[in-house]
């Protein structure tokens, strides 16, 4: 059986959307697949050495399960985003869900290739020193080359 390949484009940087690319990539790598993740736009946040800033907002997330029903007007109050983030992280820890750092380390250990979108880095004037080691920088064409050979290609 030829090695399966998967490419993921990670475009989101909120706490809920940070998980899917890392979980899928680490699992596929554990199954012996060749995996690449192309991080672009807000997805670049997942490549920062310091992931503590990754948050989730209750605002405009009508599908978010809440312990009590929350009117939208409450979601905009100062501190609500921090509270939602803290509660979500606490729940994840309680339920044994891996932290983003751990999942990312598992990915890199399993040789999942991380490619950072050079254009987005330039656009937001990010400093490469803020990103983890072992990543490559490339553009859409770099991604397309690998994406064209994959069995599974996901846009997250």
């Amino acid at each position, binding site marked *: 059986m030829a090695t399966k390949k998967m490419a993921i484009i990670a475009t989101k940087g909120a706490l809920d959307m940070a998980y899917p690319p890392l*979980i899928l990539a*680490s*699992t596929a*790598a*554990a*199954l*012996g697949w060749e995996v690449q993740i192309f991080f672009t736009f807000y997805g670049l946040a997942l490549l920062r050495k310091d992931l503590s800033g990754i948050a989730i907002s209750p605002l405009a997330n009508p599908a978010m399960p809440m312990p009590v029903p929350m009117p939208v007007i409450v979601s905009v109050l100062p501190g609500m985003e921090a509270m939602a983030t803290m509660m979500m992280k606490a729940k994840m820890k309680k*339920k*044994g*869900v*891996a932290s983003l750092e751990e*999942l990312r380390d*598992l990915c890199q*250990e*399993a040789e999942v290739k991380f490619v950072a979108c050079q254009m987005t880095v330039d656009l937001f004037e990010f400093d490469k020193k803020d990103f983890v080691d072992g990543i490559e920088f490339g553009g859409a064409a770099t991604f397309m080359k690998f994406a064209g050979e994959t069995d599974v290609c996901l846009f997250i």
Partner: protein
Amino acid sequence: MNFDKEYDASGLACPLPIVKTKKALNDMTSGQVLKVVSTDPGSVCDMEAFAEQTGNALLESGSENSKFVFFLKKA
């Protein structure tokens, strides 16, 4: 069943049982048996898929003390 190594994934959620099982198998030699304990109900199907995809045989899949127990033989 005899086993050469045990990995306890109790309390861990997807994808950790599978990803850590792969890591545990990396350090083993061909033919050795790994026992994995998990509390994640999803890991039952995941272990079957893992065995099928990687060629590491799933010798047994059952439960012990209300936890899920798997025996995998390294390919």
